[in-house]
C-alpha cells in the first residue's frame, strides 16, 4: 500500500505540526497576557491608546 | 442682473469633466514635463531595441517578439510619465483646491481621459516607427489599432487610480510600478495576444474581447474606489 519512506515523511510532518502548534499556543498566551496588562479587550482595539507615553 | 445674487449654477457632469481634461492639457503644454519624459523614454528604448536586434521582421520566427517589445515600451513609458499628473497636484498644493471645487468622478474621468490621449499620441507616434524600423509587417492594421486602443484604455484607467494613491505616499519612486504592474499585467498579456493575432492576420478573437471586458471591469472599479482614495 505504501512505501517505507512515507512512514518517515508522516513522522517528520507530525513532529513539525506539533512544534508549530506548541509555539502558536505559547504565542497566544503571551499576547493574551499583554492584552490583560494593557486592559485590552478585543472590542477596544479601536479606542485611543490607554497607556499613551 | 437679476441673477447676480444667486449662487452660480453647477456645471453639468460632462462640462466639468471636459474642463478638467482641458486643464490637464493646458498645464502639460506649459511645462511639457510628462510629454518629453514619455517621448524620450519611448524613443530611447526604441533605438535600443532596433540597435541591438536589427530588422527582426526579416526572419519569420522573430516576428512574434515585436508586439511584446512594443507593449513593454508602452508600459514603461506610461509608468515613467503618467504618475506625474497626481504627484504634481499634491506637490504644488493644488490638490486641496481640486478636492473642494471638483467632483471626484469628474476629476477621475478628466485625468483618465488626459492619460488616455497621451497614450494614444504615444502609440500613434511609436507604433508606425517601431514596425517600420524593425520591418515587421502587420496583416490586420485595424485589428492592431483596436488592440492598441483596448490596451490604452486599461493602461490609462489603471495608471490614473494608482497614481492618485502613490501621490499620497512618502516613498513614490518605485511604488507606482510595484502597485500598477500586477494590475496591468493581465491586460498586457491580453493586449499582446490580440496584437500578435492582428499582426499575423489570425484575427484578434477572444483576447481582444477579454481586453475590452477587463477595461470595463477596471473602469467600474476605479470609478467606485477613486472617491475613497481622493477624499481623506
Amino acid at each position, binding site marked *: *500500500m*505504501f*512505501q517505507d*519512506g*512515507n*512512514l518517515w*515523511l*508522516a513522522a517528520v*510532518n*507530525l513532529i513539525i*505540526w*506539533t512544534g508549530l*502548534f506548541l509555539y*502558536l*499556543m505559547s*504565542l*497566544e498566551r503571551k*499576547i493574551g497576557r*499583554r*492584552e490583560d496588562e*494593557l486592559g*485590552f479587550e*478585543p472590542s477596544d*482595539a*479601536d479606542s485611543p*491608546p*490607554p*497607556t*499613551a507615553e | 442682473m437679476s441673477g447676480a445674487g444667486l449662487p452660480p449654477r453647477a456645471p453639468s457632469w460632462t462640462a466639468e469633466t471636459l474642463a478638467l481634461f482641458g486643464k490637464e492639457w493646458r498645464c502639460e503644454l506649459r511645462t511639457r514635463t510628462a510629454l518629453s519624459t514619455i517621448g524620450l523614454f519611448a524613443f530611447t528604448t526604441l533605438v535600443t531595441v532596433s540597435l541591438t536586434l536589427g530588422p527582426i521582421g526579416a526572419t519569420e520566427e522573430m516576428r512574434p517578439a515585436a508586439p511584446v517589445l512594443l507593449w513593454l515600451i508602452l508600459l514603461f513609458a506610461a509608468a515613467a510619465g503618467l504618475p506625474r499628473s497626481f504627484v504634481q497636484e499634491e506637490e504644488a498644493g493644488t490638490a486641496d483646491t481640486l478636492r473642494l471645487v471638483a467632483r471626484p468622478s469628474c476629476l477621475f474621468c478628466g485625468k483618465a481621459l488626459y492619460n488616455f490621449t497621451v497614450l494614444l499620441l504615444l502609440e500613434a507616434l511609436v507604433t508606425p516607427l517601431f514596425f517600420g524600423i524593425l520591418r515587421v509587417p502587420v496583416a490586420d492594421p485595424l485589428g492592431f489599432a483596436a488592440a492598441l486602443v483596448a490596451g490604452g484604455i486599461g493602461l490609462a484607467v489603471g495608471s490614473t*487610480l494608482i497614481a492618485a*494613491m502613490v501621490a*499620497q*505616499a*512618502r*516613498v*513614490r519612486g518605485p*511604488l507606482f510600478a*510595484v*502597485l500598477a*504592474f*500586477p*494590475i496591468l*499585467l*493581465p491586460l498586457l*498579456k491580453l493586449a499582446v*495576444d490580440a496584437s500578435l493575432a492582428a499582426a499575423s492576420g489570425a484575427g484578434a478573437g*477572444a*483576447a481582444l474581447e*477579454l481586453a475590452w471586458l*477587463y477595461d470595463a*471591469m*477596471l473602469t*467600474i*472599479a*476605479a470609478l467606485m*474606489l477613486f472617491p*475613497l*482614495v481622493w477624499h*481623506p
Partner: protein
Amino acid sequence: MSNALRWFLWLWIAGVTVAGLLAAPLAQGFAGRAGDAPESSRIVYFHVPLAVTSFVAFLAAAVWSALYLWTRRPRHDDAAHAGVEVGLVFCVLATVTGGVWAEVQWGAFWNWDPRQTSIALAILFYGGYLSLRGAVEDPDTRARLAGVYAVLGFVVAPFLFFIMPRTVGTSLHPEPGGARMDASILWIVLAGIAGQTALFFWLQSLRRRILSLRRTDLRFGA
C-alpha cells in the same frame, strides 16, 4: 478560545497528514516522467489546501478591507493586514510545493502554466500591498489606501483565477474532479482544505492581535 479546540485542529491536520501519506490510494491520470500514479502525487494533500486557503485568505482580506472602508474602524484594517501577511505565506508555500511537484512530475519547476501565472501575479500583487503599507506614513491614509488596493485586487482576481486559466493556453492542472481519482482522495483533500482554512483564521487572529497591540504598545513583539 480554549486549547481543547486547538488540539482538535492539531488532531484534524495530523489525521489528514496520516491519511494522505499512508492510507489514501494513489491518484491516477498524471502525465509526465514520474509515471501515471506516482507516490509523489501525495503532495496534493498539502498543495491543494494551501492554494485554496490562500485564495480564501485574500478573499477574507478584501472583505475586511471593505469593512474598514465602510466603518473606518482600525481593527478591520489590522484584520486585513494580518490576513494578507498570513495569506502570502500560504500562497508562497502553495507555489513552492507546486514547483517541487512540477519538477518531479513534469521536469520543470516553472513553465507558466496558467495557474502558475495567476499565483505569481497574486504574490506580486500582495507584495505590492505590503510595500504600499510601508510607503505611507500617516496611519489613516495607510489604512485607507491599502483598503482600496485590496478591494481592487478582488476586481482583478476573478479574471486571474477563473477566466485566464480557461482561455490562455492549456493547463497541466486538472479541472476540479477532472483527474481519475478515488472518492476518498477528494474527501481527504477537502478535509485538508477545512483544516488549513481553520489554521489560517487562527494564525490571522494572532497576527491581528499583535498588530492591534503594536498600535498602542510599540515595543510589543519587536
